[in-house]
């Protein structure tokens, strides 16, 4: 059994591309869910908005890929307004339902046969990321050459994706951190606890909730853009409900209403996932049987890993409901 290789892979996933675009998505989700208390179960929809915004540029519209940033932002703002307008005056549950449904609608529309000419159907979109990759090459990163030290060896292409991705994490982390230190952030945190108190002090709660929903969505769209550019393609089924809930899991793991939590949480999510997956694969090299009953075989591992992660989450919620970096006073201070 090679525990060293398992750990190595876990560490690479901890700082890897998946962790990176999850972290961007979680920073956005944190604005909505962590600070403003808006239950957005449709972050995958915002990510799809960004990814398709970028994807459509070259292959559909025949314009430069850089326009994709503006288009992705535009799509996600539109999506946010669409989700928020009917629901933000209602109880929190309605937003949850509408966001989860909207994200599914987005996914079903982009993968539909009907809109194949716009979104590429189930094949998705590709051949749009060359210009993005070229910038990395121009900066001296050979796509096929390996760079790095110790276990951190990446191809030039991967390294470029990581540099850009983690820069976005840093930028959005700083933006959200400063916003939450401002009076604007104070209003959001107050809304999270008691909307009526905030209304009675003369603030337009609806407008603030909309701002939080849209801002979080726009940040989420950057996660989608990054995913599209990094993979050099867009696949509709990347943006399923699983994605939303994995991002949410990462956020809760790290601790809501904390920028550090929203970044390190998704990193841990991927690190722990890779570790458990690797470990189980090492342990279950042949089927585990009790008498004639097959308890576990290698094809089950994918599912079992998630069961174990779920159990770990339950334990975390019992013993540390505020997440790893959360503030217990702020997040778990119920009543007195």
């Amino acid at each position, binding site marked *: 059994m090679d525990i060293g290789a398992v750990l190595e892979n876990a560490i690479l996933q901890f700082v890897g591309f998946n962790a990176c675009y999850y972290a961007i998505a979680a920073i956005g989700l944190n604005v909505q869910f962590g600070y403003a208390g808006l239950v957005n179960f449709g972050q995958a929809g915002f990510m799809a908005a960004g990814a398709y915004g970028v994807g459509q540029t070259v292959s559909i519209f025949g314009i430069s890929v850089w326009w994709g940033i503006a288009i992705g932002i535009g799509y996600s703002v539109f999506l946010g307004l669409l989700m928020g307008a009917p629901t933000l005056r209602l109880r929190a549950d309605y937003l949850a339902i509408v966001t989860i449904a909207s994200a599914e609608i987005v996914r079903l529309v982009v993968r539909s046969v009907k809109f194949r000419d716009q979104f590429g159907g189930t094949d998705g979109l590709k051949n749009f990321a060359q210009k993005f990759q070229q910038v990395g090459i121009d900066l001296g990163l050979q796509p096929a050459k390996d760079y790095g030290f110790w276990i951190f060896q990446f191809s030039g292409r991967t390294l470029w994706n990581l540099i850009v991705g983690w820069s976005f994490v840093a930028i959005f982390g700083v933006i959200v951190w400063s916003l939450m230190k*401002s009076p*604007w952030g104070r209003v959001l945190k107050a809304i999270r606890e008691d909307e009526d108190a905030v209304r*009675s*002090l003369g603030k337009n709660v609806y407008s603030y909730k909309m701002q939080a929903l849209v801002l979080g969505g726009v940040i989420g769209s950057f996660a989608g853009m990054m995913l599209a550019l990094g993979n050099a393609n867009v696949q509709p089924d990347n943006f399923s409900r699983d994605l939303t809930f994995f991002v949410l899991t990462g956020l809760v793991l790290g601790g809501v209403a904390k920028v550090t939590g929203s970044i390190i949480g998704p990193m841990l999510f991927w690190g722990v996932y890779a570790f458990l997956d690797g470990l189980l694969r090492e342990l279950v090299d042949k089927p585990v049987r009790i008498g004639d009953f097959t308890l576990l075989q290698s094809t089950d591992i994918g599912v079992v890993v998630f069961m174990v992660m779920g159990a770990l989450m339950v334990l975390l919620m019992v013993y540390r409901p505020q997440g790893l970096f959360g503030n217990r*006073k702020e997040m778990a201070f119920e009543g007195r």
Partner: protein
Amino acid sequence: MKDAEPPPTAEQRELTEPARRARAALADVAPVPGAAKPDPILAAVEIRRNFGGIVAVDVARVEVQRGSITALIGPNGAGKTTFFNLITGFDKPSTGTWTFDGAPMGGLAPHRMAARGMVRTFQLTKSLTKLPVIENMKLGATGQKGEKWWNGLFPARWKAQEAEIEARADDLLRRFKLDHMRDEYAGALSGGQRKLLEMARALMTDPTLVMLDEPMAGVNPALKQSLNQHVRGLRDDGMTVLFVEHDMDMVHDISDWVIVMAEGQVIAEGTPDDISSNTAVIDAYLGAHQGRSLLEDEV
């Protein structure tokens, strides 16, 4: 100031100028339900609200004199809180119109009313327990540049204003004897302290009309005295106060005018002395108070 007036009692002598003015303005108002006031800051007409079968509020007419301290009293379930909710936009009346400072208010969102200077507190205290006390206070200030998201990122645009707000907040916290809790989460405050915090926070909005729903509930007797003092202070600072209270000592002590509600209607109005001898009021409270004069026999 007529010559025939008896010499002022000790209590009257300590009245401040704004208090004397409020009492003088109300002296000629007939003590009848719906009485017109010389200079009403709030005037409501035909306000009705049903909850299914029950009529929670059915106020034909009521006015609140500018610069006065007006008490709204009545037995439990009389509709006082519902009336507050309707007037401040937190609930919608089935019929009715009302004006604040001369401007019609019906259909306005609550935050717009608050922004115009009509601030309220809640019977079930709404201190934000997960924000520190000082942040609760600062939240109350209106017109904050830093509350616009596009300014939020640039502290230079709001730091100066924030410092002013903080100074004002600290000042109010001292007045309400909460300064030692300044940096604690509001969740760490006692029930009475939360009432105080909510009132102090409401004052941060720079209101012209302060509507307090049972400000004294749960506040210890020693503090009640100083809270009375604060409420009087609001009048002295030019604000109008409308408050709901069950503590008759306080009502008698500080109010210039008393409005009595029962079963959704205004059943009596008058000065505290008018009300304490009003038989309709005593009837409304009967049972709980065995017909004793309300405003004098309570200890």
